[in-house]
């Protein structure tokens, strides 16, 4: 494009480009929704496992890339203490391990699949293009659900003592254009899609299995310390696990002798606090 362009030509160009971009985005959104509704794609979707993460780490993928994959993929992580220790010994960073713990304990990815609200493609300023469109307005049910989530988050933050929560936010870019081609700053507009992933009915040949939740105990905490995990990761693990700690005087003395920090002991005590 020439360095200087007549203003009229620029306006005309924007008038043509804006609806074209709108159409492209709608087509893309339809495709995303259709795919999520079970339209056959090119091959089966990979499920990330502990081994997948180790492979990605050894292939020198950046942490950020691996974390993005964790957040957007179907996962089957084993976050028991021995497996976490194994991951660390095999070179997986704590930041990635923390993300795996977070992912294993939440349904965040499915919400990302089922809503376009947090999809990083649609930045805050991009929403300016859809001013007047009903696609990305917040639904009544979403508004209510969002309120409930915010209330729950606020309750959690009020009582959280240790650890931190990681989250994802859409990138924001400067500049945005309204449908008339004018620069606009729009408030956040959200949208969602109802997604059903349907499989044909029928029993599989595998027998159903009642798994038993592994409870984090004193020994598990010691193993994580000996493996070199940071306090923050250990505390996060304590906060998100089923626990059964021995907090007798003798056991506490043993923990301190093994250099378990007071911060971790406090997290263990909080976890066993029956009034919560």
């Amino acid at each position, binding site marked *: 494009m020439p360095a200087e362009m007549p203003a009229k030509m620029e306006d005309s160009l924007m008038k043509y480009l804006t609806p074209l971009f709108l159409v492209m985005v709608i087509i893309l959104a339809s495709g995303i929704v259709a795919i999520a509704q079970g339209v056959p794609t090119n091959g089966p979707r990979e499920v990330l496992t502990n081994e997948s993460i180790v492979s990605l780490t050894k292939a020198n993928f950046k942490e950020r890339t691996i974390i993005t994959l964790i957040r957007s993929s179907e996962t089957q992580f084993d976050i028991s203490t021995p497996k976490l220790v194994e991951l660390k010994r095999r070179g997986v960073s704590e930041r990635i391990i923390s993300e795996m713990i977070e992912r294993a304990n939440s*349904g965040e990815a499915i919400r990302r699949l089922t809503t376009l609200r947090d999809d990083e493609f649609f930045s805050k300023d991009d929403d300016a293009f859809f001013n007047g469109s009903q696609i990305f307005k917040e639904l009544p049910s979403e508004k209510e659900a969002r309120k409930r989530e915010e209330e729950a988050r606020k309750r959690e933050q009020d009582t959280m003592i240790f650890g931190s929560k990681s989250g994802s936010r859409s990138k924001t870019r400067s500049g945005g254009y309204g449908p008339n081609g004018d620069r606009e700053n729009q408030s956040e507009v959200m949208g969602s899609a109802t997604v059903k992933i349907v499989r044909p009915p029928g029993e599989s040949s595998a027998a159903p299995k009642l798994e*038993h939740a592994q409870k984090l105990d004193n020994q598990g905490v010691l193993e994580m310390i000996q493996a070199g995990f940071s306090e923050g990761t250990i505390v996060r693990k304590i906060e998100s696990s089923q626990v059964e700690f021995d907090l007798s005087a003798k056991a506490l003395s043993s923990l301190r002798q093994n250099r378990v920090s007071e911060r971790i002991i406090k997290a263990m005590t909080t976890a*066993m606090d029956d009034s919560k």
Partner: protein
Amino acid sequence: MRSQYLIASLVLLAFCSAGAVLSAQTPKAEQDRQKRPNSDATIAIETSEVLLPVTVRDSSGQFVQNLKAEDFSVYEDGVPQPIASFALKRMPVHVVLLIDTSSSVARELDDFKNAATQFINRLDPEDSVSLIRFDDKVELVQDWTTSRNALKRALNRLPTGMFTKFNDALYLAAHEQLGKVRGRKAIIVLTDGIDSRRGAVSPERAFRTLVEEEVPVYVVSKTRIQGQAERADLEYYQKSSSSSVNQIRIDGIKMTLTELDASERNLTRIAEETGGRIFLPESFDDLDEAYQQVAEELRSQYVIFYTPTNPARDGSYRAVRVKVKQPSCHVTTRFGYYSK
């Protein structure tokens, strides 16, 4: 030489006798189980008496708690049965609390947890509870315990998954967790009942297992709450532009509403035919009330034992009916059982 043969014969005879004695002491059911090849059939627990939990309500829906054994009549396949023994609610109950932790209920999980905690507080101290969660997998989070603190702690730390293996959860709760329990037992499940069809068990098999194991199921269903939310969204989209994306959403919501209706019918059948009950709260504020009613019902149940006049243990289904002398009372119990 002859004495050596005699000693060897005596030793052999001793071993054979010990084996015969041990074999005779093994319950018949255990012998049958050992002979039977691994199959999908439910484990058979030998019993000569049938246990019936019975709930009696008056015309206003209040529990009737002053009845005696002579007020009841039990029929099996239409034939009157003599009542062997009778108790009003004083038998402890083993309760499996099944909690749906899939993505479809993830946003409301805190409400579910709070309601479940209140429910646990309302049980009798002797009642045992275990906690099973189900999403992509079915996991025993807390094994049998009477410790309310242990249960609350387990409830507070429930992770969420993506999909829903509801049928697997029912099957495993009845077969694995309650299969060895004698006496009163119950499953209380909090769910929208929509299975993701990624499990190993069909709805029919799950239902049959519940009947075989004689487990009443109390359902606190989310279908009404979710249905309301979906209808609000449907109305919104129908009033919005008629774009193709909107139409996809409208179709998706209609499909969801159809699934919710079918799920509610299925849950109702499970609850009623196993002798339990279904609760359909219209909002999250009603969850606590639903759980309170379940706890009250468990406390107010009669337990009737009878020995079937039909001695055959052929695996056939026996239809059961219980009546009381007071015509205005409504009696609830399971529809039947499989003789074994």
